[in-house]
């Protein structure tokens, strides 16, 4: 690969511009394809578009040999409502898993750079922040404040979006009250059930880091359920005792 191709990919990634590197495996020839910027119909462009939509690099065979299509999509996003204790390990774990994380909390004592070094923190009100962030089908939203004044405005925006995961911290009782409020706000029961609560996979999590693992695991499962690569969603409560201990 020549330096200018690499420069361009690094630049596109920084700009959040989806790009597909098409590599002819016989000749080594590289072409950069922008899957969503052209409407012309060429087999390579269409294959690149499909690979980008599925977020899955793949090979395609053309008259001039096999091309490998390597997808460079902007990162998945995770929006955390609440700069609370659980958000600290969750944000770090999510970054490791490849998510661009934004933490939203208007309470300035919580939303500090010291508590979330190197991460994007905003003190906008959750509804304003969510409207600006425009969650899409590659975004997970997790409400963690325990406070309806902060969680609800974010959830109202999330439910109108294509976010692939919406979760909210709180007990079953809290979640039932949340349901009443969401239905009163005009959402159908089916729409309300997009919110996963109590949040996270059942692994008996207690500490903030353990809860972060359980939430991130549920987010990952939701992502792969959506893409069809998760064959059998599995709940830890169905595992043999030996695997749970």
């Amino acid at each position: 690969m020549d330096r200018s191709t690499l420069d361009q990919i690094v630049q596109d990634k920084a700009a959040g511009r989806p790009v597909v590197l098409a590599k002819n495996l016989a000749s080594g020839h590289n072409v950069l394809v922008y899957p969503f910027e052209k409407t012309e119909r060429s087999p390579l462009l269409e294959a690149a578009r499909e690979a980008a939509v599925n977020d899955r690099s793949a090979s395609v065979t053309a008259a001039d040999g096999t091309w490998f299509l390597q997808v460079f999509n902007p990162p998945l996003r995770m929006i955390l409502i609440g700069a609370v204790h659980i958000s600290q390990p969750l944000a770090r774990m999510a970054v490791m898993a490849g998510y661009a994380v934004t933490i939203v909390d208007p309470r300035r004592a919580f939303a500090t750079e010291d508590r979330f070094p190197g991460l994007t923190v905003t003190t906008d009100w959750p509804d304003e922040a969510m409207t600006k962030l425009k969650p899409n089908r590659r975004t997970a939203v997790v409400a963690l404040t325990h406070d309806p004044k902060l969680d609800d405005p974010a959830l109202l925006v999330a439910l109108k979006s294509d976010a692939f995961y919406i979760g909210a911290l709180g007990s079953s009782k809290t979640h039932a009250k949340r349901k009443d409020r969401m239905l009163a706000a005009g959402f159908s029961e089916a729409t309300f059930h997009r919110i996963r609560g109590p949040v996270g996979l059942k692994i008996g999590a207690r500490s903030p880091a353990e809860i972060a693992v359980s939430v991130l695991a549920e987010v990952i499962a939701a992502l792969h359920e959506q893409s069809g690569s998760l064959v059998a969603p599995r709940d830890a409560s169905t595992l043999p005792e030996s695997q749970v201990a």
Partner: protein
Amino acid sequence: MKEAPSPGRAAPAAGAVVAPRKFETEDVLAIAHGWKAEGRKVALATVVTTWGSNPRPAGSMLAVDANTQFCGSVSGGCIEGAVIREAMDVIEDGTPRLLDFGVTDTQAWDVGLACGGKVQVYVERLD
């Protein structure tokens, strides 16, 4: 093997004030880009095809320099050694190679995938 320094970052000089490190995910291409900018010789290995059970999907990358310092992965650690050895030749002669690994290739390669899958890795020099 000696503990490699964290990819793409030089160890700070003794007594140096270390700026708070930005918490980020490992970006193999960005690291390779940085190495090249430092004048190091770099090869890129990319998983192009997988069959059966495989720990790393197509598109996974490993970057390696002429001193075998590397970042990223193309398997669960089963074939990285062989890919890095091959990459040294690629850095030398500039000819890309398409490598096949799998349970049936134990005679051609002294490594294989314990998980029983097969994987094809493209290795090229960053020019």
